[in-house]
């Protein structure tokens, strides 16, 4: 009789352990999935850029250096391997694209070009998706970290060696406020 109770208690304990472990595993998989989703959006951006360059090259023949910067930044981003170099090259690409869009404002002929406007909309949407994917990743990392650190999960997670994940942080340069250039030279 006592043995039955003993077995029941042990069984319940094991079930509880399994539930927590499964919860941690699925949360960790969510986090890893979200990280890869960011890559999916980044690739979408890489694929759209050659199209954009080809379409605007004719109209913007005096802006060669801006176009060159975008092309080289994209090449670097595509070929980046480690996480750190990827993050850096993607940031450079974002900045180069931003400059290109700012310069495109000076060419009203481009605004009436249907293809250019559609491509610009697609790129805007892609930039949004990249930032939303990063937002989702950070949300999931926060969720995962909370699950790892609360009691009693922290005991089980350290026993099974669950590693914590890092947030996707903004570079200090990104956080700097864009200074307003009031001089007459553009």
């Amino acid at each position: 009789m006592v043995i039955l109770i003993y077995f029941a208690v042990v069984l319940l304990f094991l079930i509880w352990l399994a539930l927590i472990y499964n919860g941690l595993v699925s949360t960790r998989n969510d986090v890893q999935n979200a990280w890869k989703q960011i890559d999916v959006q980044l690739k979408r951006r890489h694929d759209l850029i050659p199209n954009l360059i080809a379409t605007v090259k004719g109209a913007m023949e005096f802006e060669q250096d801006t176009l060159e910067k975008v092309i080289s930044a994209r090449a670097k981003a595509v070929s980046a391997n480690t996480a750190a170099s990827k993050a850096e090259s993607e940031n450079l690409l974002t900045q180069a694209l931003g400059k290109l869009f700012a310069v495109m404002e000076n060419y009203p002929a481009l605004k009436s070009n249907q293809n250019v406007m559609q491509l610009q909309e697609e790129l805007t949407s892609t930039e949004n998706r990249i930032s939303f994917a990063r937002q989702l990743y950070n949300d999931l990392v926060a969720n995962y970290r909370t699950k790892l650190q609360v009691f009693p999960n922290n005991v089980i997670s350290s026993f099974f060696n669950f590693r914590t994940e890092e947030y996707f942080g903004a570079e200090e340069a990104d956080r700097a406020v864009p200074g307003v250039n009031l001089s007459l030279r553009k």
Partner: protein
Amino acid sequence: MPLTFIDIERQKNWRIWLFFLVLLFLYLVLTAFVTVAFLPFFWQTGPRIWVFAGMVALMVSGIHFWFSAYDTSRTVVRSLDARPPDPQDDVHKMLMNVMQEIHVVTGNRRTIQCVVIPSFSMNALSAADLRGEAVIGITEGLLSRLTRPQLEAVIAHEAHHILSGDCLETTVAASLFGVYSSAMEKLTDTSNGRSFNAAPFFMSWSLLKLSYLLSMFISREREYRADAAAVRMTRDPIALAETLYLLSRSWRGAGFIGSGFEMLCIMNPQATALDETEGFWADLFSTHPPLRKRMDILLKMAQVNIAELEAKAGKAATVNAQNPPVPRYYAMSPRRQWQGPFTPAELAALPWLSPLTWITQGKDRPVERASKEQCINDIFLSRLSELERPLSNVTCPCCRQPLTTESYEGTQVFQCRFCAGILVESDRIPRIIVRTNRETPCSERIVSLAKTVMQQNQLRQLRYLKSVDSAKAAVPLLACPKCGNPMMRGFYSQAHMIEVDRCSFCGITWFDQDELVMLQCLIENRILPEITSPNYIGQSTH
């Protein structure tokens, strides 16, 4: 408020059970009434009949509940004649992209469909049903007038309603009686003037009252939560504030969106005075909070970014203290970034500064339009004086800057250089309209805009004939530039349905951008309203 999007707790949908109980109670009462009135001998057979009546009521209410709430998304889409967006159309493509972005940020936890409602009114709604489908609808009128950040804010707001589960409750409440009420309403319209008008009218009236009963359970607070979630997602509170303000000044679809479905919309299609008040009865019966309060909350949120700028400015200020201290302002650029702090002299050098730019003096100070600050107004005055046009002594009701005196069709009018609005003395308008031999004929854009506005207004007029005048009280009115009283907003005439603001004390009319040209165009081209029959369920005007 939950910390992240992925753990928005599905609200315990206890209210849905409550609606079922209310429905059951109503059917019990109805069954009792029927047995007492028509089958009095049942009373003598004892209590068993009550059990029987109870079971009948339970079955009927179960069937009603299931049929109403199971497939509501499709019913709503069908009754509004809404279609999926067209990928060949640039504006619809933008909407599809925004929907994709919302799915990305919510991790694809729920697939939400999106449809476009073919109405020129401006509103958006969301519906979810017991089957598990969810849909966000947006009218063509709103879609065409929103910028991208504003569209993102609206869709994020609606998506939060769906994800948090309160859309399901609202849809169930609306569908139990609302679907039949709006069907009855359309039946009333078709049968207007015929002999059997009384029955559908009475039924639609009573179903509507029942649906208002259920709306007591729908809290106003859910709109605040959805606003906050939209800001969390898009990080742009100003865009949502601008959208709400835009919605408040326009036709929100009263008469197009059936009377039972109001609670599903972002702003109540019937602009009632009840919505704009607070207090016990308003909290109980109104499903939408006051606009002013929603905007105040959003504008306060907009000041959060300023804290960072202030911290940086604070460091610099200790280095070079000026005396006397000059007020500094932060301004929102057209790229939706706060910039600053600027002294008034620096503000004057900004090319994009206009009276409608949002500014603030710091994170604890209110966010307002630039025209509210006197020292910034001086900047605009100096810009106007550079133009070398004669300035009049009347000011623009939107921008608060002096109007310049211009000659239009040979007559003196006053024009605002910032928003292109025109002030005309009312008795001069017929003159302007009659002078139809203009050098520049109406551009295509103006002609199509005028046709659209006419059609939209005529459709709205058909519905508004029945609605209460207090609906107008809730629309924010502009103040007359001469006497300061609120100007009445209404159609120029029954034949020419362009909306203008008029002050009857001073005898002046205010036209917003393009409105005067559209009026001339309507008359020149003899554009007549084309609506022959309003949109009914099952009928299409296309």
